[in-house]
């Protein structure tokens, strides 16, 4: 029931918004004498002609008023969606928003009998798209992205080329087969259409994957591909468009086109890199004016986007590169609050943008200018699916030989089926120079977008679950298997770290050294440098503490002995294990979420708490470091193991009362730094977390020592 009451409220508001949006076409009534704002005058004198008590001056506020109404409409729709009980489980948000848009468009069309406002390409590319891409780029898991960069580029460049050429050429074949209605569509037109329809859209992909809970690796593959294929799409689109304007096309032009691809991609990359570094440098000096620090993040990113659009480079690549570059330095330089501000603003803007885009997609569908052709539309739909599927299969078969974590069949299916088209295609099709069949292209594009978003968006989750179900038919693992498997996971993860993903790549090691030695020193303020280097380790520790600290599992009364356990007891053991076994495998961590910030915030507040850490370990102890570090390190694990027995006891005693076993000559030193810390920590942290935090701080002090030593 609770879900129902907001709906009438929202519906009425929406209706009001629709009606207000239909207002502008009606002639203004209101006795405005030229230039005299009678409405502002207060007194209730009713003089004929000159003054009125109340008057309406809509024209004055029309533009911002309408914009706000649209945003309000979109946001209320989004709210309603999340309040509406079971709908989010079945229908992705993008579908609901498009439906709302269709409704509004229908209402406006019905009232005004003319086409509702459409999404202009300029508004889309300049205002609506950048926040979404910026948000995605800022929260991009950097390490995972670079690990998979080869695969992503492989899919983005080759996959898009494959799709474009395949769809373009096959569509031309279809046109040749139906010469009476489609005969005047030339090959170049088909290729142009192919180039804009083949592009996978990051907005749509993100919104659908939200609800799907895919793992990080898969998410980064699809999302990275959708980001990077922008460069290819832009180049091919502009290439074919300019070919259309040329009287004839030579081989040289094609070659130039290929060169342009590289220039566009790299140009966008370097523009973004430049602005990212400048932004990082600027953020270094914002300590005295912290309130405007977030503004620089947005300004520089947007500037990079606009600059690269101006130079006809790939704006998306620029803004993503800018965000990725400046993130680590900006995070270290600005205060915690500014960081939170940045993140929240990014989320908010991208959310609004995305909602607006989908609503407008719905609205723009209601138009006068549709032209329908069964063979063209149906064959386009079919070809999109077919070419994408074959492309993914072929490319994956090649790339799996070179990858460490193979892309499984389930992943391939998701990549192929999750290739949604969205507003980018829509805007691009409007930008085509006018020619007789342009309306057909527009209609087809809209159909493809609606089909992919609705049909593919809604069915991808059930289909994937169907695929998963087939694999899960085997019996549930026994307790031993779970525990030992987890041990093996940790072992493998550790060995992978020893071998080093990047140890195998010389240039990545070189970059880390370069980063540490030059970039960090230059771009991060002096007093922030130590903190930045342990932030990542700390976040990881905090994250796992939180996973362990959620709820105490119900007590299980198990008697050791030979009797077989009841199923409930097995279940509770399994629940305990699954909740508490530390999950290290990166492939299983949940991916980026549009609506919530992760644990980042709390990790950083925890860091804030421990910010006194650097002062407690001055570098003068560095001479004793090696042995002390080792002692602390091994002790920390043993200490952690022993703490659990007394986890109800809070205070300073437990750790140091442990017998100082094989620590060696450095046994005395470890006692010193721990004593001042517990006192400070007790007031701030909950009791049961204090012992573990001390353990983690031991590790951190160790890590810090390493950093300062290097």
């Amino acid at each position: 029931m609770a879900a129902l009451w907001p709906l009438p409220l929202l519906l009425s508001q929406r209706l009001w918004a629709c009606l207000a949006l239909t207002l502008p076409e009606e002639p203004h009534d209101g006795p405005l004498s030229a230039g005299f704002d009678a409405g502002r005058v207060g007194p209730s004198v009713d003089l004929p002609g000159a003054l009125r008590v109340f008057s309406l001056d809509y024209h004055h506020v029309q533009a911002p008023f309408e914009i706000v109404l649209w945003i309000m409409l979109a946001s209320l729709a989004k709210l309603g969606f999340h309040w509406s009980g079971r709908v989010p489980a079945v229908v992705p948000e993008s579908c609901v928003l498009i439906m709302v848009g269709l409704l509004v468009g229908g209402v406006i069309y019905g009232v005004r009998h003319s086409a509702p406002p459409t999404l202009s390409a300029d508004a889309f590319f300049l205002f609506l798209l950048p926040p979404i891409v910026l948000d995605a780029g800022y929260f991009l898991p950097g390490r995972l992205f670079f690990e998979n960069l080869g695969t992503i580029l492989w899919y983005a460049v080759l996959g898009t080329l494959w799709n474009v050429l395949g769809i373009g050429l096959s569509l031309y074949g279809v046109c040749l087969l139906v010469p009476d209605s489609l005969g005047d569509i030339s090959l170049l037109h088909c290729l142009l259409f192919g180039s804009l329809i083949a592009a996978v859209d990051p907005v749509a992909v993100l919104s659908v994957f939200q609800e799907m809970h895919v793992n990080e690796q898969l998410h980064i593959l699809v999302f990275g591909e959708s980001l990077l294929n922008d460069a290819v799409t832009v180049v091919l689109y502009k290439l074919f468009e300019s070919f259309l304007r040329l009287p004839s096309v030579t081989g040289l032009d094609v070659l130039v086109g290929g060169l342009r691809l590289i220039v566009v991609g790299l140009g966008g990359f370097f523009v973004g890199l430049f602005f990212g570094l400048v932004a990082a440098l600027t953020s270094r000096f914002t300590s005295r004016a912290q309130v405007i620090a977030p503004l620089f993040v947005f300004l520089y990113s947007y500037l990079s986007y606009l600059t690269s659009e101006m130079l006809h480079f790939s704006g998306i690549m620029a803004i993503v590169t800018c965000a990725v570059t400046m993130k680590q330095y900006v995070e270290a330089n600005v205060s915690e609050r500014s960081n939170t501000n940045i993140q929240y603003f990014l989320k908010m803007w991208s959310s609004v943008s995305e909602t607006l885009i989908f609503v407008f997609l719905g609205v723009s569908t209601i138009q006068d200018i549709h032209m329908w052709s069964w063979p063209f539309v149906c064959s386009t739909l079919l070809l999109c699916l077919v070419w994408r599927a074959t492309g993914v299969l072929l490319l994956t078969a090649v790339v799996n030989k070179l990858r460490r974590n193979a892309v499984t069949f389930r992943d391939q299916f998701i990549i192929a089926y999750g290739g949604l088209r969205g507003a980018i295609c829509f805007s691009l099709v409007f930008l085509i120079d006018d020619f007789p069949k342009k309306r057909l292209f527009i209609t087809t594009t809209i159909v493809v977008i609606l089909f992919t978003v609705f049909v593919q968006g809604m069915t991808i989750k059930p289909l994937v679950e169907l695929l998963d179900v087939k694999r899960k038919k085997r019996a549930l693992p026994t307790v031993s298997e779970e525990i030992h498997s987890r041990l093996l996971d940790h072992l493998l993860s550790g060995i992978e770290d020893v071998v080093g993903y990047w140890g195998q790549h010389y240039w990545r090691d070189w970059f880390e050294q370069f980063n540490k030695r030059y970039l960090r020193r230059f771009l991060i303020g002096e007093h922030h440098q130590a903190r930045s280097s342990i932030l990542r380790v700390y976040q990881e520790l905090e994250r796992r503490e939180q996973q362990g600290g959620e709820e105490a599992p119900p007590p299980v009364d198990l008697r050791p002995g030979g009797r077989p356990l009841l199923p409930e007891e097995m279940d509770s053991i399994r629940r305990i294990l699954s909740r508490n076994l530390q999950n290290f495998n990166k492939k299983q961590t949940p991916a980026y979420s549009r609506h919530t910030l992760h644990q980042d915030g709390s990790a950083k507040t925890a860091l804030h708490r421990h910010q006194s850490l650097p002062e407690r370990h001055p570098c003068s102890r560095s001479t004793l470091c090696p042995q002390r570090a080792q002692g602390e390190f091994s002790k920390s694990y043993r200490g952690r193991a022993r703490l659990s027995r007394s986890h109800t006891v809070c205070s300073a005693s437990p750790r140091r009362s442990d017998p100082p076993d094989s620590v060696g000559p450095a046994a005395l030193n470890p006692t010193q730094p721990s004593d001042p810390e517990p006192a400070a920590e007790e007031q701030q942290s909950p009791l049961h977390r204090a012992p573990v935090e001390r353990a983690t701080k031991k590790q951190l002090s160790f890590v810090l020592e390493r950093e300062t030593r290097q």
Partner: protein
Amino acid sequence: MGSRASTLLREEEIEEIKKETGFSHSQITRLYSRFTSLDKGENGTLSREDFQRIPELAINPLGDRIINAFFPEGEDQVNFKGFMRTLAHFRPIEDNEKNKNPPATEPLNSRTNKLLFAFRLYDLDRDDKISRDELLQVLRMMVGVNISDDQLGSIADRTIQEADTNGDSCISFQEFIKVLEKVDVEQKMSIRFLH
């Protein structure tokens, strides 16, 4: 760094390691450059601190046990051969190896040897049995702080009960192998080293 690697590692050594572990030439040179990058003291061997400098290993709950696995009994330094010998356990089992003449000694990356490596992570005192205490220690490392000792004890007892066939309330290596027969150990314990 590249030139240092090739001059310090002699061809004969590469051949020996190749024969012993089954890695290819390029894999060995690449792992050697990783070895030297870890070796901050530049004395051709790695100590425990060198491993502890790897930040992700610090977070790994089994970190120090994994590090210990690299060092032979009672020693504090490991040279490149020892390093490679340990890493050889994680080489994937290739199909074509099964068809060739089986070598005299079992290759380091066979299923049994992989399981023995994992077994030794539990079995610190090397008595070829995982006692309840040893199991509890490892469990406590892997699990958070929320589980009380009793619950953990029950889980450990259950684990031993599932595996123990001869009733000595310890898990021997053979019992360990049997318990894990359904788990795809080859895939879980293999790293695909780039060629």
